[in-house]
């Protein structure tokens, strides 16, 4: 025998630490295992890649947003500083060029103040000058103050006189000291400073007030906010009081909250915060001189619209790649497992009994080797199987032959003894009849060595036998045949009726002393044939009937020596366990032995091997 070596043989150690695919050994096909394992690996890999890419992109976008916010802050801060510088310049001009040059006891500064106001009226609401006791010296464009104006209580006034060397910027407020005859009111940011005045040659203190139009600052910030799709900027003073906020009215109405008191403590730069369950990037920029802070808020959720779209773009891209990978996986797995599947299918066919089918040989070297090995193994198995079957058949045949051979010597002895007796009694005719019957009986017994014959021949054999026995027993019994002609063409194991008749003669005819009757009835029921041999002899008790067909409790017999058990066994060996003898007996009434056979039409070719169910 040729010993082929497998292309790769794994050692025990290798097996112990071998990588196992997720679905290996769970009853899945190799194709499923390969497809799913690689699909899962692909999905995990792509997900990992997606997360990395998304984070990189997100971080990049956040950095860009932060840079953008800081640029906006720088620009806005510069614009605001210029604006405030311009206001301080107006104040300086008013102070150093007008107030310091004038004696308020002798002259008016209205013209100069008007000129300065007209030149900057887009940004200004009022310019006014007060004595330190709160009395108004002059103001433009409204020249009078209200009766109940409490100038000395105004924060801008008191602050100016407390810190005289500084400019003071107020928070936004409604200017309420001038006597405006219209219903209009103005939100202003007051720029105030202490000034030295000359009145009738005497120096005194006063306060110069420049009311900046709040709407100028508002417009400056509004224009920035309008350009921003997401997020906003706002302005607060160094105490955290909001000067400008795009949702200022909502904040005043407590419909919106801002984290200004926290922001005011932060240094210039950017940081992240969570405020009211919203992640956002906060950028801070301090405005020089005033200490005001401009804050830029960028919600991280939108960091921003670009990220949102990119997120779904990435998901779409990954889904497309995964679909493609899945298709490729499927193709590869089919390519790998195709030969194995063909091999499996061919093995299945072999198992089903089509012995001559070829086992598939092909595919990769491993599969080809496997196919060859299996083919060889299958061939050997088939040979073994055939050999086994042949042995079994031979064994059965020899057993049958042995059983049949048990009949012949005993019967022959009795028959010949009867013939001898007839010749001695010069009953030559009877002797001739006996010999003729015997010859016919043996002819059928031989049946060219067949073990299965037609029921017709078996009945003829039975009649021959009974004719011989009737001579021998000197007509002590009567034999009646009631045979349905339909069964005559059926098949039967040779010489099964004769032993039963022999028993019937022994138990019925011998004991009845001339009144014995033996009825042989043959009938067909559906696909079965029943041949009953019934006598009116001594009968048997039920317990005897029960053990008749049990091999271990074989009843001692007389006559031919062939027991019912042998007949029963022969029928079952040939036709199967469902068939055989059915015995029914009542003591003192008689015994019925029924042969149960399948109806199998007799043909020459059925006579030996094929009549087997």
């Amino acid at each position: 025998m040729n010993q082929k070596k497998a292309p790769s043989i794994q050692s025990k150690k290798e097996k112990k630490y071998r990588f196992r695919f997720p679905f290996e050994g769970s009853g899945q096909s190799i194709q499923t295992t390969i497809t799913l394992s690689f699909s899962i690996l692909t999905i995990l890999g792509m997900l990992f890649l997606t997360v990395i890419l998304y984070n990189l992109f997100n971080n990049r976008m956040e950095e860009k947003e932060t840079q953008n916010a800081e640029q906006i802050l720088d620009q806005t801060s510069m614009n605001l500083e210029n604006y405030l510088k311009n206001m301080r310049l107006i104040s300086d001009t008013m102070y150093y060029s007008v107030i310091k040059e004038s004696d308020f006891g002798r002259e008016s500064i209205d013209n100069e103040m008007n000129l300065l106001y007209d030149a900057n009226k887009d940004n200004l609401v009022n310019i006014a000058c007060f004595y330190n006791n709160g009395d108004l010296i002059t103001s433009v464009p409204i020249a009078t103050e209200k009766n109940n104006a409490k100038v000395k209580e105004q924060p801008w006034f008191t602050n100016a006189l407390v810190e005289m060397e500084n400019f003071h910027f107020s928070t936004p407020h409604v200017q309420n000291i001038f006597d405006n005859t219209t219903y209009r009111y103005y939100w202003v940011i007051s720029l105030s400073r202490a000034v030295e005045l000359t009145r009738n040659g005497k120096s005194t203190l006063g306060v110069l007030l420049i009311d900046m139009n709040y709407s100028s600052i508002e417009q400056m910030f509004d224009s920035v906010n309008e350009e921003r799709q997401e997020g906003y900027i706002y302005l607060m003073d160094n105490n955290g009081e909001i000067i400008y906020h795009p949702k200022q009215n909502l904040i005043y109405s407590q419909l919106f909250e801002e984290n200004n008191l926290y922001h005011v403590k932060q240094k210039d730069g950017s940081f992240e915060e969570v405020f009211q369950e919203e992640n956002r990037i906060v950028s801070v920029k301090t405005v020089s001189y005033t200490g005001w802070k401009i804050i830029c808020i960028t919600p991280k959720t939108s960091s921003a619209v670009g990220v949102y779209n990119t997120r779904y773009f990435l998901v779409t891209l990954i889904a497309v790649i995964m679909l493609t990978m899945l298709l490729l996986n499927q193709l590869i797995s089919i390519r790998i497992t195709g030969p194995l599947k063909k091999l499996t299918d061919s093995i299945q066919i072999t198992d089903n009994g089509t012995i001559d089918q070829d086992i598939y040989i092909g595919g990769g070297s491993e599969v080809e080797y496997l196919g060859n090995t299996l083919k060889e193994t299958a061939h050997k198995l088939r040979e073994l199987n055939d050999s086994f079957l042949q042995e079994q058949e031979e064994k059965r045949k020899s057993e049958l032959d042995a059983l049949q051979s048990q009949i012949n010597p005993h019967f022959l002895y009795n028959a010949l003894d009867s013939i001898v007796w007839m010749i001695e009694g010069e009953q030559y005719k009877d002797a001739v009849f006996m010999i003729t019957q015997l010859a016919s009986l043996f002819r059928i017994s031989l049946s060219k060595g067949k073990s299965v014959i037609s029921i017709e021949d078996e009945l003829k054999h039975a009649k021959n036998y009974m004719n011989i026995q009737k001579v021998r027993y000197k007509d002590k019994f009567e034999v009646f045949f009631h045979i349905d002609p339909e069964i005559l063409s059926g098949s039967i194991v040779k010489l099964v009726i004769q032993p039963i008749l022999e028993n019937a003669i022994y138990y019925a005819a011998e004991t009845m002393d001339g009144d014995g009757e033996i009825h042989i009835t043959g009938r067909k029921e559906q696909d079965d044939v029943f041949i009953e041999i019934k006598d009116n002899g001594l009968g048997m008790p039920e317990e005897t009937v029960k053990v008749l067909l049990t091999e271990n409790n074989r009843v001692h017999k007389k006559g031919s020596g062939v027991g019912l058990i042998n007949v029963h066994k022969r029928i079952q060996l040939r036709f199967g366990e469902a068939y055989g003898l059915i015995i029914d007996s009542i003591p003192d009434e008689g015994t019925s032995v029924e042969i149960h056979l399948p109806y199998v039409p007799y043909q020459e070719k059925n006579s030996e091997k094929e009549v087997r169910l």
Partner: protein
Amino acid sequence: MSNRRYITILFSVLFIVLVFSSYQMLSGITPEEKVPVSVIVSDSTNDRWNAMREGMEQAAQNYQISLNIISTENLSSAKDLISLMRREIELGAKGIVFEPVDDRGMVEFIEEVGRSVSLVLIQSDIEPGDVYSSVLTDDATLISQLTTALEEKYGEKLMEKKIGIVQSVPYQFALKQRKKLLEDYFREKEISLSWRKNNIYFLSDLVEQDPVDIIIALDNISTEATIDSLLELKKEKKTDLFGIGYSEKAVYYLDRQVVDHLVLNNDFNMGYMSIENIRKMIDYGNQKTNQRIDSYSIGEENMYEEEYQKILFPLVQ
């Protein structure tokens, strides 16, 4: 499970993910459409609605609403109001913010229309319903603040004062409620009122013929009418005016001490909240809320305080 089944499931899942992400990607590019909402209030061009209008515009901007404030004059009957509302619904309004009038058929109409169009009632004190939201003026608080101001100014001498009450129209829910609450208060204090006037016609004649120490105006129109009458009769120093309402004129004369005390609702909040509510109703259907807005009592002495100047002089944004 067979290989074919696994593959089918994986393909299906990936295909669904692909369709979903593509849809999300495309919908992210498409700008959200604004929802048309109409606002119907009586005399809508009057200054007294300025703060409310600003609140509404701010909310409209935040909540993607296309706001249409209908120009109206005095809407004195339910018939006129219903006719306007029907027209707006036909023109495609998804929601209506309106000021109801106390007239036959109003409640039935609200119940009928409220099932198909989102409704928010403002400036009213009617019972909350299950088919609409409302942003209610808290009339009990308004009257309480007004009577507190009276007591703080006059103390026990309030009993000796001659008092008249005026309102602009007789049919508004809010005005009827305010009048009832005020009359209950004076009845409890055993103060008899010199007169009650349900409209502003010939108010000057009444003030001249039956002068009183205190006039209480129950709404902005009657407050402004009383200011005009007092200035016309030069009685601004002799008669104290306690008004409910808000307008630039009323605030101006509060500053000029013609109006002694002004009690007002936070109309900005009312406007904002009404639009906020209607957006929620349009989006989620069953989110019906009934909210009350704050009110303030402001005199000449505190009108420029930081808290109150933000209410009286709203920043126009």
